């Protein structure tokens, strides 16, 4: 049994038959960093919001299971996920936007502790300063009295991480946590997240569009495109032996010489079949249907009809 198990999450806009996420599934083990990678519009952020039960108004979860340590988190009445801060927390891409601009950062962390752990106010304040010190903030007591606008982006992200960790969650979801930061600060934040995982044994779902960041941070990786999982496996398997045509395309796009005159196309969410089908160099008739995940190697699965036994013989 995995720490976090997500299966068959299907999400769409209310009163609209199109699906934004189609049968998305993944697992996270304790002490593991699972990478979720894809381009913008691939559904990686939408997946994390669905897992957290934070889907925006007008978006509904149509199907799906989210279980944490074997316990079902999906509310049978609303169909949405309900969880506590000690189960799952999330950090966001723009830390300064995620913090309350009118409240001192120490107070914001203390509030989390008061509400979720029933700590009295004075104890919550002290714990908040300890947590700030823990995420490597020099002069934690002074920073606790600062407002978000007085801190740099890297500091704000440390504050967010401190707040996320204050309740000692089992799962941390990090949605592009360093995209807004400079590379030298990004390196500091990466080290911090890795240290905290090693120390607390929590599982991390690490969302990014940066393949280098995945290689640096993750144990396993899930590749998404157009709201569906394309490929999933251990970091080494997926990076050295990519099976799905989209994964290969994504890896190539880093180095490949492309024809600059060809203009990129958007994802077509109305497609019934594979959403990469119309861009895929290996597409054939079967791609008009939605492909399941095929086991291509140990702990390595890919969602493409090329892996179906009879096709795989003559496949390119």
């Amino acid at each position, binding site marked *: 049994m995995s720490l976090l198990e997500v299966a068959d999450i299907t999400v769409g806009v209310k009163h609209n038959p199109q699906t934004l996420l189609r049968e998305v599934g993944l697992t996270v083990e304790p002490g593991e960093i699972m990478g979720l990678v894809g381009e913008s519009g691939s559904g990686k952020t939408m997946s994390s919001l669905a897992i957290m039960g934070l889907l925006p108004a007008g978006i509904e979860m149509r199907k799906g299971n989210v279980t944490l340590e074997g316990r079902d988190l999906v509310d049978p009445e609303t169909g949405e996920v309900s969880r506590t801060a000690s189960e799952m927390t999330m950090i966001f891409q723009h830390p300064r936007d995620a913090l309350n601009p009118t409240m001192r950062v120490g107070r914001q962390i203390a509030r989390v502790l008061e509400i979720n752990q029933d700590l009295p106010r004075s104890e919550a304040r002290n714990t908040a300063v300890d947590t700030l010190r823990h995420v490597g903030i020099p002069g934690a007591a002074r920073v606790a009295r600062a407002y978000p606008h007085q801190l740099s982006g890297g500091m704000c992200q440390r504050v967010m991480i401190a707040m996320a960790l204050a309740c000692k969650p089992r799962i941390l979801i990090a949605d592009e946590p360093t995209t807004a930061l400079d590379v030298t600060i990004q390196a500091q934040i990466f080290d911090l997240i890795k240290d905290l995982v090693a120390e607390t044994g929590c599982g991390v779902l690490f969302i990014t569009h940066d*393949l*280098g960041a995945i*290689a640096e941070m993750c144990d396993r990786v899930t590749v998404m495109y157009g709201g569906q999982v394309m490929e999933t496996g251990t970091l080494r398997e997926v990076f050295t032996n990519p099976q799905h045509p989209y994964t290969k*395309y*994504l890896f190539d*796009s880093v180095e490949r010489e*492309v024809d600059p005159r*060809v203009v990129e196309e958007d994802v077509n969410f109305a497609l019934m079949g594979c959403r990469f089908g119309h861009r895929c160099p290996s597409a054939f008739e079967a791609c008009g249907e939605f492909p399941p995940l095929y086991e291509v190697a140990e702990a390595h699965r890919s969602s493409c009809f090329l892996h179906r036994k009879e096709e795989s013989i003559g496949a390119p």
Partner: protein
Amino acid sequence: MALLEVRDLHKTFGHGHNAVPAVRGVDLTIDHGETLGLVGESGCGKTTLGRVVVGLQEATGGEIIFDGEPLDGRLARAEYRRRVQMVFQHPAQSLNRRMKIVTTLSEPLRLLKVADPDEIDARIDEVLQLVGLGPIYRPRRPRQLSGGQQQRVAIARALMPNPDLVVLDEPTSSLDQSVRGRIIALLRSIQRERDVAYLFISHDLSTVRRIADRVAVMYLGRIVEMAPTEEIFEDPQHPYTKALLSAVPTMDLDHRAQRIILEGETPSPTDLPTGCSFQDRCSLVHDRCRVEQPLLESLPDGRMAECFAVTA
């Protein structure tokens, strides 16, 4: 003769105690048809330098020499405005969302008093072709285009007056990986066809590596190292360049470079230390760095670095 020469350029915002020196004495040159990559972290002054070069901001000191002529009199200015163009980071914000693409593209020529509508028309078709968008895009508006297509329009607009130099400020930072690759390839093919020079400003080192002929690394308003692209990436000299390059995550699973983690954060430009501005984060710091500002000096192999430990 270089196309653009910048000598001891300064740009300070504000006065007195609140003065923020964003650019503190920059020297650089760009040749015809060359790409100079300008890299650095947020707040290092790279965007300000680009804006001063284009003329969107007035320098507070130093000289800009374009094609051998110093930029002073008004006539020189008008010609300069045609020959130096800019592309911004966020295409959606830099395009007028109420204008059709055709209007956006014709505006630069109308401002430059090109009156012949046929000439403007022909030029629009030519430039759209050049950026990979056909004439079907002429009547569209920005919101009907994807981010990559919008950036193509912004590049097309910059090319309309047939410039000699285009300053590109983070042109691919808001785009996806696969779209980014195409825009870089597009810029290179335009350069081959038109012999246009680029000042390519970016914090994204891997993108700069793919497009630049030479790279200048900026830290707190000064260029700390400048060299041909491969030399910078293969064998960086300045301790800041080394740390910056080592911090970039790579996809290579087997050759993990040893990361140099910089302690702390970039000091505030309003409160710079005496001497080298990198001293508090530098592993090679010694007494001289705390009292004297090092200058960008040539190394024996022709590269340039601003560090006593490297040039000594």
